[in-house]
């Protein structure tokens, strides 16, 4: 499965705003497919944002987070040109990492 992460980080003053869009089914385990079988749960459990080796946000997600999750947050101390790292792991043990430069 191709796991895509789109990250966009911008700095205004001393605040860096990070927007990330992650491609993931986020199946809750409550939905049935067309033939009536339950689609097994498949969702991101832990997502981590790092900047310069420092974790700037850790998210714990349950099955109630929407498909193809979007998250926006901001932190202080990021500078243009520095890379933002984003990494997640889901309940099936799949994971993905990505980086984006702050602009």
């Amino acid at each position, binding site marked *: 499965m191709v796991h895509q992460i789109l990250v966009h980080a911008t700095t205004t003053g001393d605040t860096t705003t990070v927007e990330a869009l992650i491609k993931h089914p986020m199946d809750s385990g*409550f939905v049935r497919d067309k033939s009536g079988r339950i689609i097994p749960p498949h969702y991101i459990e832990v997502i981590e944002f790092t900047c310069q080796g420092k974790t700037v946000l850790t998210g714990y*997600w349950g099955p*109630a987070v929407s*498909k193809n999750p979007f998250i*926006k947050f*901001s*932190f*202080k101390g990021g500078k243009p040109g520095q890379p933002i790292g984003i990494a997640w792991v889901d309940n099936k*043990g799949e994971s*993905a990492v990505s980086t984006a430069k702050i602009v």
Partner: protein
Amino acid sequence: MGQPIPTGPKRRDVLRAVAAGAAAGIALPSLASAEIAPPAVSSYPAKAFRQTEKDPALQAMFGTATLTDTADVRMEAPDIAENGAVVPVTFDANLPGITAAGVLALDNPFILACAYKIPPGTSPAISSRIKLAKTTQVISVIQSNGKLMSTAKQVKVTLGGCG
């Protein structure tokens, strides 16, 4: 067509070369992001996400279940969500010593939707999108100096979004 065409070894060589190329292609991106490791799944508070009642979910996630309703925690969520599968929820807080935050949907099968660990320097204003099974009260919780501060909002769901 009487003589067999000796294609065997050649085909094997081609496959081998393709496999080597593919391996190199896979290796390159993983090297580029080698400095970022996927987060440790052992830190996941799985118990908190399996709770169907508010208090046990809060207890498992934050270590306390006492909520204090306050205007210092702001939340933005739609009054009416046409599609329960994608409900944008934004929270923010003007409080000292914030370490964690979370969003709860009281009538969802599992109460806790998402939670965040907020280190110093990171703003407690976080936007994301959650699923709501039906019309429910959504509570934004912020942990400030160990105490849980919250704001609740009723969100009417016209189309359930367990999916």
